[in-house]
């Protein structure tokens, strides 16, 4: 009420002032002189109104009650999931009804959409987090045993308890395979990405199109390709090396594509400045382009690694399966983490399934670590890393000073004692 009273008065004042002062089309809010209008407080924009909160809560409670009636009396369904769906539909409907009491249709639509969008996002995030928690939770049974990380499955049968056997063979296999794959993809991928950016032309456009098309390559087809060529045609045994080749074929297009995007973001002015100073193209790429995009390139490599380390299907076709630790990638089957999970859960034995979930937890921790490193490196802009370097230098000098003062604290005493002795 106070607001509605005030508003016309201030408009009058505004009109009056602007007429009196000078007849221009520009109107500014100027309060009449001498009249105290009170201290102006900053208005808060946004935030949550109590009414909105109450209608959401009210709708939720009413929908809950109605859903119980509906699912038990009218159309019986069992299961929490079904009940939740019925509740949610009722909730949205009731919320729309509640809002429509106060507001016009435009606002009702706006409010309902806000609620729906928010709940969809909440649903997705909770499902994704639930997937992780579920897998780690089921695997927790196998994780506390040290032998899980130190032994392979050679000695352990399906009926053995969790205190026997482990997945060290899969961990070693995964690391070896991804290392070989990276040794192939990093030089090749970086060279190709630099080529796409440094030598533009019809041919490089063609290469880019083909690479983009190959990001659609289903991973199983990459595995099938290596299976048919390397293993069946060239007689490479089913081994870690063959698996690495399959992973490389799958990772290459993904890495080149993201590295290409990162390299395109290097400011043209930087390159021109370097060329203008007389640097050759190679010097420009080595001293300007690559250092500028270093964090982005690292991110693209790490993300491709995360994809490659978690792929099961190419490995399924090419690496063979073994329960023993094998560190030679050129001969004999070599198992990787995803493949080990896949084989563990095929068994009906609860301990084997627990091992499968435990392996999945290990794999996920590995992927999470890679991802966090990627985020951390990707967030490193040149200024930030320079700042970090100064901070590190400052810290080191601090530590040095600390040690110096510590030693100073220790030595003078002796000096003092000695001086005492002397005197």
């Amino acid at each position, binding site marked *: 009420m106070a607001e509605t009273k005030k508003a016309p008065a201030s408009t009058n004042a505004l009109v009056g002032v602007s007429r009196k002062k000078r007849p221009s089309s520009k109107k500014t809010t100027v309060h009449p002189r001498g009249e105290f209008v009170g201290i102006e407080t900053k208005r808060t924009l946004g935030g949550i109104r109590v009414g909105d909160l109450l209608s959401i809560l009210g709708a939720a409670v009413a929908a809950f009650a109605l859903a119980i009636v509906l699912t038990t009396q009218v*159309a019986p*369904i069992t299961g*929490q*999931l*079904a009940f939740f769906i019925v509740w949610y539909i009722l909730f949205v409907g009731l919320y729309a009804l509640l809002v429509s009491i106060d507001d016009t249709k435009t*606002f009702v*639509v*706006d409010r309902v*959409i*806000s609620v*729906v*969008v928010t709940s*969809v*996002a909440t*649903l*997705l*995030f909770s499902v*994704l987090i639930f*997937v*992780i928690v579920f*897998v780690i939770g089921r695997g927790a049974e196998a994780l506390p045993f040290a032998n899980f990380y130190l032994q392979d499955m050679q000695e352990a049968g399906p009926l053995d308890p969790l205190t026997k056997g482990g997945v060290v063979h899969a961990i070693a296999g995964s690391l070896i395979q991804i290392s070989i794959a990276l040794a192939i993809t990093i*030089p*090749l*991928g970086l*060279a*190709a990405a*630099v*080529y796409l950016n*440094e*030598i533009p032309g019809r041919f490089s456009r063609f290469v880019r199109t083909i690479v983009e*098309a*190959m990001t*659609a*390559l*289903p*991973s*199983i*087809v990459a595995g*099938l*390709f290596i299976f*048919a*060529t390397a293993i069946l045609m060239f007689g490479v045994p089913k081994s870690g090396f063959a698996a690495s080749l399959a992973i490389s*074929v799958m990772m*290459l297009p993904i890495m080149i594509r993201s590295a290409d995007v990162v390299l395109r973001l290097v400011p043209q002015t930087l390159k021109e400045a370097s060329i203008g100073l007389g640097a*050759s*193209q*190679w010097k420009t790429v080595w001293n300007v382009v690559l250092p500028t995009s270093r964090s982005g390139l690292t991110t693209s490599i790490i*993300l491709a690694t995360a994809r490659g380390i*978690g*792929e099961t*299907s190419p490995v*399924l076709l090419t690496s063979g399966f073994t329960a023993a630790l094998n560190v030679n990638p050129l001969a004999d089957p070599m198992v990787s983490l*995803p493949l080990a*999970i*896949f084989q563990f*859960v095929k068994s009906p034995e609860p301990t084997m399934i627990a091992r499968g*979930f435990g392996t999945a937890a290990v*794999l*996920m921790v590995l*992927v999470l670590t890679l991802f966090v490193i990627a985020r951390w490196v990707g967030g490193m802009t040149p200024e930030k890393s320079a700042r970090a370097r100064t901070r590190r230098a400052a810290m080191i000098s601090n530590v040095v000073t600390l040690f110096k003062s510590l030693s100073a604290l220790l030595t003078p005493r002796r000096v003092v004692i000695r001086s005492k002795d002397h005197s």
Partner: protein
Amino acid sequence: MLDDTPRKLTIIRDGGDKIFRGVIRAGGSTVLVIMVLVGSFLAYRASQALGTVGFSFFTEQAWEPDQGKFGIAAVLVGTILIALVAICVSLPLALGTSLFITEFAPRQIRGFLVSIVDLMAAIPSVVFGLWGFFFLQQAIVPVSRWISQYFGWIPVFAVDNVDPTDPLATTTVYTSSTFIAGIVVGIMVTPIVTSIMREVFSQTPIGEREAAIGLGATRWAMIRNVVLPFGQGGIIGGTMLGLGRALGETIAVYMIISPVFVIQPHILQNGASSVAALIALRYGESTPMGLSALMAAGLALFTMTLIVNFGASMVVARSRSGAAS
């Protein structure tokens, strides 16, 4: 006297540059050769099988290569059905989440949500397979039953050999279905679709947003009239990229479905099929014909994902928002 014609500019490169250009050119060409080799080799190996059965490869449902009787009619339909279910799940989820991140979420947590979504895109598919097989399978049965009970008159939702009104009837008929595999794959591709849509929505010109708000639009009116038209290309392109991933997904589908080699249009019913799962199931076949037939199936799958992917990148590139990227 006054010769003012433009001079011809020639670039003289030193030895280091020549080597450098040679090396990166070689890198680019090698990648091209590998990529072209994958496609052409598949086509070459597939030609034997395709030559034997001819066009019936696309109409035959059974998969018995050694009897010379095989085709991808059943698996192809199965793959497309799984991908369609996946898109029905992931499109609303991704659209809602990306709008939430760009328009509704508090500014402070936006960056955090973005990294969560990107992280989810990196979760291995075998993990989703585990979740689908050990959790979703049981949890979804009542929903399947309810849908088939009340919407069974729509042919897609019908389930054979079961009396939905009998509460004690066995529920195994609802497990290992296209529906469950589709949901798992859908949740799996949602982070990828979300991150593409979010990227596009966040590029909406701030001036147009403010203009809409300044004209008195509600938040939703602003989204509907500014953000969604601007991001149209990203929505379609992102969805198609997700579709491409869903078509090629192997291990999660393989873990959930129980394969059948007839066209199974009832998505709620036990038994489903997909090309990728077929390859994973039968690659051990040592006969040259069996392998060639699998190559043909792989080629068909690859062609399909290729078309979808090309379509997606074309849609994204032609739209207003994609012109810059």
